[in-house]
């Protein structure tokens, strides 16, 4: 009977390619939020994550990658992080063992869809919707930000130096965001302004 509950992706469209740029839905990832408890909880959390994953939880809006490369931690507010790993790693139960007593652990795997925007000029496309400065002097690889894309709250995460952005968006809003980015992509394909800034 298990096969009767099959997963359905948040956005029904496939990927969209415009002017060498691609907008696509990333595969399902296991995502867990970590919220440090008071007192010694926060230091203890940092220590244990360091021991187990070989990485220091960031104090600023950044992403850091576990030593084994199988898990990434994103800053998600003061004392809060998102751990992201590929499906099948049992991330939530692993984290419960490591630090379940010093922080709140909550599955966010289904809360967020991840839209990936890659190719030339994606910074310009992103600037149509995202109101923060994405210039390389300000925002680079593994920088993350909780902000808006148009009217939609997103976490933007730059994963490559040649900008590739992941947008973590609430699942229910993913189709709207996909639409908004498709409009921006189509608009840019005819842009006549210098696209350097």
């Amino acid at each position: 009977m298990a096969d009767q509950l099959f997963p359905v992706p948040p956005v029904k469209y496939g990927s969209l390619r415009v002017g060498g740029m691609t907008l696509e839905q990333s595969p399902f990832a296991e995502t867990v939020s970590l919220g440090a408890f008071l007192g010694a909880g926060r230091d203890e959390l940092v220590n244990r994550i360091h021991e187990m994953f070989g990485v220091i939880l960031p104090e600023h809006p950044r992403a850091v990658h576990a030593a084994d490369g199988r898990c990434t931690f994103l800053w998600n507010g003061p004392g809060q992080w998102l751990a992201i790993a590929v499906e099948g790693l049992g991330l939530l139960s692993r984290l419960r063992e490591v630090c379940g007593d010093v922080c709140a652990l909550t599955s966010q795997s289904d809360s967020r869809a991840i839209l990936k925007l890659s190719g030339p000029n994606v910074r310009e496309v992103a600037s149509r919707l995202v109101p923060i400065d994405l210039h390389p002097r300000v925002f680079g690889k593994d920088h993350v930000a909780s902000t808006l894309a148009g009217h939609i709250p997103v976490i933007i995460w730059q994963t490559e130096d040649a900008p590739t952005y992941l947008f973590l968006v609430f699942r229910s809003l993913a189709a709207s965001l996909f639409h908004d980015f498709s409009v921006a992509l189509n608009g840019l394909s005819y842009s006549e302004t210098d696209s350097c800034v």
Partner: protein
Amino acid sequence: MSAAPAQIFRVRSGNGVDTSQTLHFSFDGKTYTGHPGDTLASALLAHGVRLFGRSFKYHRPRGLLSAGPEEPNALVELRDGARREPNTRVTVVELFDGLNASSQNRWPSLSFDALGMNGLFTSVLGAGFYYKTFMWPASFWEKLYEPMIRRAAGLGRAADEADPDLYEKSTAFCDVLVVGSGPAGLAAALAAGRSGARVILCEQDALPGGRLRDESATLDGKAGWQWAEQVRQELAGMPEVRVMTRTCVFGAYDGGTYGALERVADHVALPKDGQPRQRLWRIVARECVMATGAIERPVVFPNNDRPGVMLAGAVRTYLNRFGVSPGRKAVLYICNDDGLRTALDLRRAGVAIAAIVDSRPAGVGGGAQVASQCGAAFFPGGAIADCYGHSGVKAVLVRDASGKARSIACDLVAMSGGWSPNVALATHLGNRPVWHDDLCAFLPSTLPPGMVAAGAAAGVFDTAEALHDGAVAGQRAAVACGFAATLPVLPEAEPTRYAIRALFHALKGVPSAKKAKAFVDFQNDVTAKDVALAAREGFVSVEHLKRYTTLGMATDQGKTSNINALALLAEITERTIPQTGTTLIRPPVQPVAIEALAGPHRGTHFKPTRLPPTHQWAEEQGAVFTANGLWMRAQWFPRSGETDWLETVSREVRTVREAVGFCDVTTLGKIDIQGPDAAEFLNRIYVNAWLKLAVGRVRYGLMLREDGFAYDDGTTARLGENHYVMTTTTANAGGVMAHLEFCHQWLWPELDVQFISVTDEWAQIAVAGPKSRAVLEKIVDASFDLSNEAFPYMAAAELTVCGGVAARLFRLSFSGELAYELAVPARYGDALARLLMKVGEPFGIAPYGTEALGVLRIEKGHPAGPELNGQTTAHDLGMGRLLSTKKDFIGSRMAQRPALTDPARPTLIGIQPVNPEDMLVAGSHLLPQGASATATSDQGWLSSVAWSPSVGSWIGLGFLTNGPARKGEIVSVHNLLAGTIIAARIVDPVFVDPKGERLHG
């Protein structure tokens, strides 16, 4: 279509047009030719067209005053159909092949306008005519005055259909924003750009250069525009510099934020597929160099609005940039040496100069020399006393210094009252400009943080000085951003002299004595006499003057009129200009279309849509959807044969009451709450007690606002020792999250608790009805005991379903039936709906939508949004006893106020019409039977109503004074909108299963 007429006024090739290509366009149905680089103004002028429109109030023939965005007269309707754009200034319309424009505000045609006789009723249409003439009786306004005025005085017609084009919004960041690409702007961009700073240069025109394109003066011995092109090339090669042409910076806002409008595809017939027509930019800049240039002032003299009377600088623009002469024989009317350039440029183009009228006394300025060079009569200390020619200038009456007047034939008057620095951006945040007598101009004094004015915008009119001023401003701005900037080597410019003497009008004595109209505001048809009249009637504040005469309040916002009006008012009231005042300029600098402000957020994309996990499945089922906040929810699921929504909804309700139904309730806000102090936190948030809730149990909770009124409600389940999951109403989900964060971070930071939204994490589906347990038994894994004993009403559990999928089950009921809410990870929500349909089929399962959900909860007397409307208390909702007296919680203190617990307050009741078929309408008022429909008799209202298939009657929930004590009483239900009154009985709000036996079955 006849052959296009020749461009007989195209006297040479201009620096901004490409005469090797020919474009065709039409104006008022007639075909003309022009060239790439032309504006609609220059192309029509090349054909000798002088009449462009009729004035707003008096329908006077009007031609071009200017060559730029300040144009008050020459407004047309551009394009047609859904793209028709009224009040478009021909001076900023770039010509494209196939362009189609028509004049506006004329009837029946431009050359013969029947309403031109408005000019004969000047006394009626003078200053304040709206306030004086049409005051009484009031009914005349709608029926007579308004339509008459609209017919007689109006501007263009907006398109009747929705705009078919796309609009975008974008955000840009830079170190240095340079506004304007004249000499100062280019030098600033160069200085800042070479330092490596991130620079954005915005130019509202299609071409960079500003006045460098308009003047014949040279830089380093070459045409000025060539230097502009060279700088543009260099800037284009800098990786951190962005040059944005056709982009007007229209507003300065707090925090170094600027609004700009990029006209992406206004200059072509149609945008390409997917291309936006315009793009609204928000530019965040650390520093800003305002190099916006200056706008030339007209001179106020009788009949100064005749077609052919133009600004001197505009004449030079048409000559030098477009190669078009606006006339054959010119008279200059000037008060400064800058205007004299016009004579020399006209002379070089072969245009005769009949006279130079220089308001300055003999010996001041270079007028005499230029006049002799051009062979023109020279009138130092002179004035133009009148202007003749109905639809175009034929002659002017020149009064010399001795007062002697003579008529001089001409077809062009080039006037210059001096230049007004374009300081708008500097004043948007409330910084008042200061009057400088020596320049006869307002200059910025204090500027918004990070902004500096340069070049003509700062009163630096000499080209060499403007270049230097701009370079210094650009360098300093870059240095302020931490870049090592140096001054660029600048080209040599010919020295110029300005030597201005104030000239605002040529009206001797008090202007009201003159009979002929001397226009101050061309677009709103405000004359010098109107200003005098307003002053005489006591409107001596410039702000009052503007509102009384409408001066400066047309679409051009008084760019060419404000200062002349101020000067006139000062003179009439015998004050100086600084004593008389100034007016702050508000954004936008140029008109911005509402579509551009909306950007892509139009129509169904006005706001984003949230789709629950079962949306696609519901679509396949043919569901009818409704918006619930941002959420799109299934409202009901029609079946073939059902004739109306009520039939469908009643069937869905019966299915739940008699068998089993299911409904996606994912949209309820879900908040995961964890931490050692989670219980204590809930205890302070909710009115009722939470410390003793057992693991695996759910409790209803009510939240108040701090003022004691009800805020939100929902259930919270305890999943573990320190782990709770709260539900909120769909509408308040975001608000409750912010409220919890506020209480935690600001009120009680010592509480150890963490929250995160899990609304999207779980697909939550209510399965309700006597057969719901039987259906769930097919889904939950066998190890879980669903029996009433093991999993009673208000139980909660984490379990697995369908062979190992993690899920949560809550035994909750909004319908009053045996019911559950099953939550699975959202990716399985779609499949769960399909599975429920399949396994529920033998039990007669059916999906139900929000409408049936509403009926079910009204039948059960559960308050929802209409009851928790922000004006009701726990007591009003019949939940006064929930309020704990043993603890402090949000709203606890204020809820105890006597007025909030007064039993006479309208309190929740059920209501049932005496005749079951009488339809109840929410919002109706409840009055005692027989009482007159007055506010004093009003005793309450109906909040929610439904046709109840279970009761077989219309039923409602409402609030009634002393409600619970009045059960059985018959009251009058007044629907004031429909004018109906029906009799209805007050009953218990629980219509179905009042003892709650079904819940516990």
